[in-house]
């Protein structure tokens, strides 16, 4: 058996150096990563990369920074398994392998000129943050912006400094809710779906984008439809386990599409026709 070296393999990685690590919560860390020669990752909001640590493996992680901030990119990682635990052990200056970016992200072009309703549940704020900061950096291209955020409890809320900044901006309506909280919590308590009826929006001018745990979508979509938002104005980022990112390995397949190449963001008018998609 002869072993031939190849340079154009889809499995080839780039060496990414960790420039900064921020502890967001007990479980989540934010990694700022720089590619060699300060090469831009050149991603769209909502895309993901395959992060690898040799000897441990690879995992798909969504990019949580906006492509408008080109000198580095950020990944928000929850310590939830063997790979992410190893990632959490890393220090500034350490390297990770990067493949990608992969997939079809959030619908930036259809969003332009329209009002935008962004709905994030739990860790769903991480990929959605790439879009939120993209919108902030191109604020004039978008109409009214509403951000609804749901979290398990106040302690698990991510990007707290940024949330405070979004809340302060007069050109963004930010609203959050927690599933449960101690009595001193002054904000909303309840599921994220409870925030939708109160949002003041023009349904035909609004494009809604949701990102969160799979269980959230059915309920969120029901509320959005009740508000009169057309099905074709709703986008969902679907959670699947992408092993290769190249549309081959089959793990992320939903009927005839590969989530890693054709998604993870899909229009609801497609999703609703596909049994088992949400």
């Amino acid at each position, binding site marked *: 058996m002869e072993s*031939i070296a190849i340079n154009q393999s889809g499995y080839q990685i780039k060496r990414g150096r960790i420039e900064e690590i921020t502890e967001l919560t007990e479980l989540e860390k934010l990694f700022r990563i720089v590619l060699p020669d300060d090469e831009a990752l050149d991603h769209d909001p909502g895309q993901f990369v395959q992060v690898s640590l040799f000897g441990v493996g690879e995992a798909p992680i969504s990019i949580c920074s906006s492509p408008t901030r080109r000198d580095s990119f950020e990944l928000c990682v929850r310590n939830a398994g063997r790979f992410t635990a190893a990632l959490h052990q890393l220090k500034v200056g350490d390297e990770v392998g990067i493949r990608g970016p992969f997939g079809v992200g959030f619908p930036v072009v259809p969003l332009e000129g329209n009002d935008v309703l962004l709905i994030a549940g739990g860790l769903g704020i991480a990929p959605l943050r790439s879009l939120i900061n993209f919108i902030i950096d191109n604020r004039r291209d978008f109409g009214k912006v509403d951000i609804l955020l749901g979290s398990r409890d106040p302690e698990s809320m991510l990007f707290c400094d940024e949330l405070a900044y979004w809340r302060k901006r007069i050109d963004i309506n930010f609203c959050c809710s927690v599933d449960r909280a101690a009595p001193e919590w002054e904000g909303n308590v309840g599921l994220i779906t409870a925030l939708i009826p109160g949002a003041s929006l023009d349904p035909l001018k609004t494009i809604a984008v949701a990102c969160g745990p799979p269980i959230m979508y059915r309920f969120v979509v029901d509320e959005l439809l009740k508000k009169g938002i057309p099905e074709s104005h709703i986008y969902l980022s679907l959670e699947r386990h992408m092993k290769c990112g190249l549309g081959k390995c089959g793990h992320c397949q939903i009927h005839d599409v590969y989530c890693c190449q054709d998604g993870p963001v899909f229009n609801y008018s497609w999703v609703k026709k596909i049994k088992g998609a949400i």
Partner: protein
Amino acid sequence: MTQALIAKTKLADLVSFLALCGKVVGPVPLGHGQFKFAEVRSLAEMALDYIPTILPPKKYFMPQYETLLRYDGADGQQMQAVVEVEELVLFGVHTCDLAGIQCLNVVFSDRPRDLHYMIRKNHITLIGLECSDYCDSYASCAMLRNHLPKGGYDLFFSELSDGYFVDIKTQKGEQLVEESGLFEPVSDAAREQLQELRRAKKQIFRSEVPIRYQDIPRLFDETFDSDVWTRIGEKCLSCGNCTNVCPTCYCFDVMDEPDLDLTRGRRIRVWDSCQHETFAKVAGDESFREQRSDRKRHRFNRKFRYPMKRYKRMFCTGCGRCSRSCMAKIDLKETLGALMEERG
């Protein structure tokens, strides 16, 4: 020359010639009516009258364990992507298995192209062999129109009374014919014999399930919520046999295999199965195909319906391996029959 003849008496010389040039792989008997593709040095080692081998020739195109990268983590994340290749001739591949290889070709040449597969494929010479008769009751090649050659080979042999009619499809095939010096031009009598063989096949090979090829995807679309899937799910053992033996199943996992020093190692891809419980599991332990019935339905749809939309072809070759190897005796033709009955 696009066609040639080889006398039966010269077939052994051809295999010896091929074996002198490199590795030759052909169907080898294993006893108990079973066969496998394995390296041979002579015609005598092979059984050309064979039913589908336990594993399809997929194993040479997409090995069960395949190195994608060699890495060295001593100084950051350093690696080199590699493809492991071996020059080989696959001899005596039936039309169902040629169809299976064509399916893999379509998947791995679809963008983004998989260079590991594409490079390895270029090192393999394919010599097909026509089936004159049915393998056994599990076969459904006629329903899927795979009982006749449809390309995907370098050379294709059809058995005549005292020789083989050889269709030459590629330059590689033509070179082999010329260099061996064992072939002769086609005669009118041979052409007539080939036509007779194909006429006879029309009588022997009939669609094994009373459904037209073009109607199969719709059958699966319309029976997505059928009780048949529940019943099959109750039988299925989730063992993954059906996917391992399938000539077109290509799902895989990617993992690292560290050396003993834990610094160096290789990243490999390994066959995986959509029939396993963990296959579609995501963070938070949610699975989108939690039930065996969901997974079984997914696999059948991946053979007969989804790829029609994506690749314009079915990914069942009709080889019958899944039914033959199923420990729970889930039979493809019976499943199709049950779905048709349920739909009415």
